[in-house]
């Protein structure tokens, strides 16, 4: 038998490992058998259990540390802030007992916190829970990036606390008493409610966080919940499967139908569709482009326009791109309709604007932001060629070479090829060199202005046009293309100061700013606005998605015919 000894040893060692692996993950096993149960009950419409696929595991559950969609989504469902975004994308008071008192200058908000709001350990949610979380987010030792990003320039004193080490108590968030929170802003913030629904501004129970120390929010047991659900099973950021259970102590628990939601991490879109088709899950991850056409017209495919716009940035440190005619020619020489119809074919639409469609509505009339300005820089080859010739003459050259910085995914390469072809065909004498690089490299080269043309996109973090508008102010944190317009800067300044408390004027000023950016300056080339498509089982009622921060809400959902 000696000749088989190594195989034997291998087998023995292996079986020890195997036993250990399956045995150790008993939590997952339980979920497995439970799930088999829910399969049997599939025809029984009363089983309020939902199975969802997510694009990644939950990287982090400490609200101040999160910066990704899956974390934000989970927090939105197991925790709660002063406001919550409902199915109609409106901010409604959540922990805040009704609307807050707002001072005349729009800078001081006084919130009363709901009497019946409690943490999952029974403690009441207090004003200090907010103060503590926000101060923690601004402590450089915490390593939070969304804290400074969302608070600086908005909450009074935030910048000093984060950058200059000012005393945390100087932050404009004070607990007046147990249930009264006073927030002071640096300047009026029109989208303040939207911010208060964002997980970075959620409260944290100081005693609990300090007691847990380093272990805080590393597994389901080391978190306190105050939302419609609690995490029943989550072993930390490597766990590929996690489970929500209904939070019976939630103040609005009677309006939460689901008893249990099971999540699985699925990276591959085709796998998600296969699991959905074989009845192992109810909601897929976002479908990749090539899968969308096969579900065209399927009533179980839910589609929505994301407020994410992709554009080509033109670097004005390049002399040729300083020429407005050249920029305008480039902007009008790309057939975007053909790009979205033939290359993407997933419902994404051509963008002839910088602030997306179906994103924000007029504060009084409710009209879409897009209605006033309409389309700008639309595709028009003849016009483009006229501007091109004029531009070349002004520059005194008859040909131009430009570098085009794009992503390195297959999809990005295909669409960049298409755009290169459009530009070179429509504009005589233009040569485009494609440079396909990973995302982190593109960011670095964006910062160092090392490109001529760059395909880039932007998704907002709060429901307000200014999340797009303030990208383009002179030396703005994301300008990185040397665009500078006094007119544009002035309009943005006015919108945030003079008209800060006049929503309609402010709105019109931001629309005017967009017109300056595109129609007058042709500063960027808008390309397309992205559409999301997912499959949702017909037994899932009131599926709810969101535009900023958290992606989904599960509390409105019920299962049934």
């Amino acid at each position, binding site marked *: 038998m000696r000749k088989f000894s190594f195989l034997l040893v291998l087998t023995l060692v292996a079986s020890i490992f195997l036993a250990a692996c399956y045995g150790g993950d008993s939590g997952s096993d339980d979920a497995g058998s439970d799930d088999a149960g829910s399969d049997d009950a599939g025809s029984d419409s009363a089983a309020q259990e939902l199975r969802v696929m997510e694009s990644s595991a939950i990287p982090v559950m400490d609200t101040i540390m999160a910066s990704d969609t899956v974390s934000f989504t989970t927090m939105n469902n197991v925790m709660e802030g002063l406001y919550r975004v409902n199915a109609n994308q409106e901010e409604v008071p959540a922990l805040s007992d009704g609307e807050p008192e707002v001072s005349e200058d729009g800078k001081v908000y006084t919130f009363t916190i709901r009497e019946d709001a409690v943490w999952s350990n029974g403690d009441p949610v207090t004003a200090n829970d907010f103060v503590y979380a926000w101060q923690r987010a601004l402590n450089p030792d915490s390593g939070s990036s969304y804290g400074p990003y969302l608070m600086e320039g908005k909450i009074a004193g935030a910048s000093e606390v984060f950058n200059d080490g000012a005393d945390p108590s100087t932050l404009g968030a004070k607990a007046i008493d147990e249930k009264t929170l006073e927030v002071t802003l640096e300047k009026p913030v029109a989208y303040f409610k939207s911010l208060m629904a964002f997980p970075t501004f959620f409260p944290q129970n100081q005693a609990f966080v300090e007691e847990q120390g380093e272990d805080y929010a590393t597994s389901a047991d080391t978190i306190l919940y105050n939302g419609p659900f609690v995490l029943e099973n989550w072993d930390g950021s*490597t766990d590929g499967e996690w489970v929500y259970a209904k939070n019976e102590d939630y103040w609005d628990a009677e309006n939460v139908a689901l008893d249990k939601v099971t999540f699985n991490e699925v990276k591959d879109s085709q796998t998600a569709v296969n699991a959905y088709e074989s009845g192992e899950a109810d909601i897929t991850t976002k479908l990749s482009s090539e899968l969308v056409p096969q579900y065209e017209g399927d009533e179980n495919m839910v589609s929505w326009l994301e407020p994410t716009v992709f554009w080509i940035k033109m670097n004005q440190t390049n002399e040729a791109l300083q020429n407005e005619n050249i920029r305008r020619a480039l902007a009008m020489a790309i057939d975007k309709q053909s790009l979205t119809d033939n290359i993407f074919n997933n419902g994404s639409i051509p963008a002839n604007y910088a602030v997306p469609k179906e994103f924000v509505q007029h504060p009084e009339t409710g009209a879409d932001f897009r209605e006033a300005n309409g389309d700008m820089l639309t595709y028009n080859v003849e016009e483009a060629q006229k501007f091109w010739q004029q531009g070349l003459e002004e520059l005194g050259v008859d040909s131009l070479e430009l570098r085009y910085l794009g992503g390195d995914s297959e999809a990005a390469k295909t669409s960049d090829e298409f755009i290169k072809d459009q530009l070179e065909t429509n504009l005589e004498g233009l040569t485009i060199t494609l440079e396909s690089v990973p995302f982190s490299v593109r960011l670095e080269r964006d910062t160092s202005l090392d490109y001529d043309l760059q395909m880039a996109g932007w998704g907002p973090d709060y429901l307000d046009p200014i999340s797009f508008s303030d990208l383009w102010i002179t030396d703005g944190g994301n300008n990185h293309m040397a665009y500078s317009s006094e007119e544009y800067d002035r309009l943005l300044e006015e919108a945030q100061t003079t008209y800060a408390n006049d929503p309609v004027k402010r709105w019109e000023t931001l629309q005017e700013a967009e017109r300056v950016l595109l129609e007058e300056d042709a500063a960027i080339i808008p390309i397309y606005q992205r559409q999301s498509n997912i499959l949702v089982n017909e037994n899932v009622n009131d599926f709810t998605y969101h535009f900023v921060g958290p992606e989904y809400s599960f509390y409105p959902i019920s299962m049934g015919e």
Partner: protein
Amino acid sequence: MGKYVLQRIFYMALTLFIVISLTFFLMQLIPGSPFSTAAKLSDSQLAIMNAKYGLDQPLPVQYAMYMGNVLQGDLGVSFQFSNTPVTELIAGRIGPSLSLGLQAMIFGTIFGILLGIIAALRQNTWLDYGSTFVAVLGKSIPSFVFAAMLQYIIGVQLGWLPVAFWRGFEYSILPTIALSIFPISIAARFMRTEMIDVLGSDYITLAKAKGASGYEIAFKHAMRNALIPVVTVLGPLTVSLITGSLVVERVFAIPGLGEQFVTSINVLDYSVIMGTTILFASLFIFTVFVVDILYSIIDPRIRLSGGNN
């Protein structure tokens, strides 16, 4: 033997040190920031973040600090999973990769070796052609095609086994088959060639002359010698299987190491890249060592001694 082992352990440590150092400096050549939110942060915010994680220090200082920590068993914290220790990240993800890899390895090796022996004993018959066909197929079909086909036909169409996820043994069957097709083809091809070679040698003829049975010749005399090259390739192959297959884990939605490693490179999660590299390199170096020891057990003609060769 003892001296040999000591010498090998020294070289193993040296190799590991070189791998860690090279990876550390090569990684720093990739441009970009490990902070996923870098695009949204202002320069001063970014500077404070860099200082917090020691990224503002000169490279040699960062290197010295890192090596110091590694020697104390501290692999640092992840950027991507905000401050989760790398050891926890690896520990949390290695389970599925390990059990899947070992299952595939055991199934693949045993099945592949049998296939190779049968092919060699029944050379140029339909059994031989059949097993060669399987081996060529396994080597030439990309694993993502094979995995996707298995999932679609057996999981979705026939509904015999779960399509995806990782919740117990039945969930591991399809991925195991998908992953084992490669070791099967390798083991089968090597085993067939070696067996044919060995079966033609003089001592086998002698054994036949002595009147040993066909079974005895194949399994007692021939297989042992034919195994040596197979063991050589299977060692490193084991490592690549148990450290996670990106493709198979992706297709069957298994929360393993493979996907995590690739993602960490894409998002420049320095400490995770380093930690995973150290793990892979150690496993690899160790396996090569074990394979060398195994030689002397399988083939007494091979004597291990220190130096002089």
